[in-house]
């Protein structure tokens, strides 16, 4: 299995990094939220961690901490438009159940 990015996602990651002017890539991860749910981490990376796993996808680099990897294995990061709204979406096969809006989930 692997973690991948669609071309649309890659293009937007590259664009935002270029606009920001600094940073080595973006971080994908999960964090606990309140009760028993998890939520996604999607952040710019200024300094990677030694234990980070690195995925290069074209010009964009993804950093994943090993703890999060277990929950994200097989995930594809996509960039989608829904009406006027647009943004990134984690297509994560590990998710068993998520809240209505998809902001928190269980594995």
């Amino acid at each position, binding site marked *: *299995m*692997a*973690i991948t990015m669609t071309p649309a996602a890659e293009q*937007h*990651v590259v*664009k*935002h990094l270029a*606009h*920001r002017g600094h940073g080595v890539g*973006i*971080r994908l*991860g999960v*964090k*606990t*939220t*309140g*009760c*028993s*749910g*998890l*939520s*996604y*981490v*999607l*952040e*710019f*990376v*200024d300094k990677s961690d030694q234990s980070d*796993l*690195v*995925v290069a996808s074209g010009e964009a680099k993804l950093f994943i901490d*090993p*703890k999060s*990897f*277990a*929950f994200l*294995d097989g995930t594809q990061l996509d960039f*989608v438009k*829904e*009406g*006027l*709204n*647009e*943004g*990134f*979406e*984690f297509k994560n096969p590990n998710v068993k159940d998520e*809240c*209505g*809006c*998809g*902001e*928190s989930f269980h*594995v």
Partner: protein
Amino acid sequence: MVLLQISEPGQSPSPHQRRRAAGIDLGTTNSLVASVRSGTPEVLLDADNQYLLPSVVRYNALKESTVGYAAYLQLSTDPLNTLSSVKRFMGRGIQDIKKLGSQMPYELTTQVDGGMPNFKTVAGDVSPVEASAEILKVLVSRSEEALGGTLDGVVLTVPAYFDEAQRQATKDAATLTGVKVLRLLNEPTAAAVAYGLDQGAEGIIAIYDFGGGTFDVSILRLSSGVFQVLATGGDSSLGGDDIDRVVAQWFSEKAGFSDDLSPSLQRELLMSARIAKEELSESIFTEVNVAGWTGVLSREKFNLLINPLVDKTLGCCKRVLRDAKLKASDITNVVMVGGSTRTHLVRQKVADAFHREPLVNIDPDKVVALGAAIQADLLVGNKPDEDMLLLDVIPLSLGLETMGGLMEKIIHRNTTIPIIKSQEFTTFKDGQTAMSVHVLQGERELISDCRSLARFELRGIPPLVAGAAKIQVSFQVDADGLLNVSAKELASGVESRIEVKPSYGLNDKDIARMLQESYGSAKEDMLARALREQQVDARRMREDLLAALKKDGRELLSDTEYSCLELTVRDLDKICDSQSYREISHQIEAASKASEEFAARRMNVSIKKALAGHSLDDMERGI
């Protein structure tokens, strides 16, 4: 489905904690909205991929309004019910408006108390504030769709040279839409932010902002993230509209139309003038065909017609340089903002005045909204480490009426805000127990030449001989540039405090009425929806926590911890059906905190389990 944006390191929001903010440029001719997504400021498009929303509102007999391009198309066919350039009426009395031009394609109704005139439409009287609110509503809902949820706040831009009444009217319009205004931001300052952050401009920069209805010029010093406005000046009733008016006047003369034009002919002339102006930015002459008259307007003639207007803006530039104690040669960069800077003559004369080619790297229509979006993103808390700071000034002096009908300045123009200043006055008659305080804004000495903002009375002064009482009047201007005045008799402590509601603004009663009329039901719907969502969240949280406790609670928690969380479950249970949004959200937050540690332990366990299924080799191979 919530679509995610890339956050700054360590700033990924928790579910339902995403903070959405937008910057709105409410313009005379066009309005637009921008937001920062994944760190990049972008203008937000409508369903037709347009970012500009014509600032035109049309009302019909059913009291419904149409905003934008559809309304724009009806300008000359339905002139009395189709309102454009409403921004020029904001916070203005009928006398100010008459100065804008002899003829107006509207019917105006004057207010008894000398307040803002209303437009007479088939839907009844409409105030400029209400019409502006209609435009804002469209932009707010566009942003909410684009950002996937309710806005936490907006930064609303205003011309730097807007006075207290005009600022207050703009804020009132936002109040009518129900959106939270994080800050009123001066348009040239917003443009400087966009240039400073995106283009790395540093040094002393002049922002020349010639819009549809207003002209501003600000001089800023930019150094390592601090945007310090040194001086600002302008004319809040000078803009592209005036260019259109002189050109329309010329058409009318050439065509031999009478002076008394019908509203729809006035509109037709103005629209042709605007089209001719736009064409002359590209070519050196343009053919005009309006109301049966055909002719040619050359750029040369056009330049002659508008030259006095452009010179007026350059006069403002001189004054602002003097206020900043600088010479034209001290300016590192000149930035062009606003649609009117597309006009050839404007660019050429500004370049001559500052001895350098002005910057136009960022679209002059977009730059203000982009800067406002950057500030909004910061104020809403999405970029806690950003060191950007805006230090703005007040454009016009504030003061009080003193004896002889003179204005005594308390806060001078170009003072950095926020600022608090006070001045002591005394009684001039023996036994005087009341004193009236008349608050004014402007640069001139005679009060009749200044704008009257408010009058109030301080009563209960102890009767003393003339000159013995000490009355301290304090002026406080906040970071939005809005004024608060209080007066206090120092010996007795008698105090009188007012939020200055300028005479030309709306009073609170008006706002309350409009809120109820125009938007009361929509607001109720929105609140009800938000409440239902919270109830669902609380229930879901209760179930989740209960399930988690059942599954791993005994294993991962001490007895005390366990019973604490049981209590949390019970609290959530009690609150699920509450009718108070605040109460539920408070409880959800508390529950979330209480269960944080438990959640972390569960995650560690599941990580162990998950890792047990993979070997490290697998992971590396997978990457």
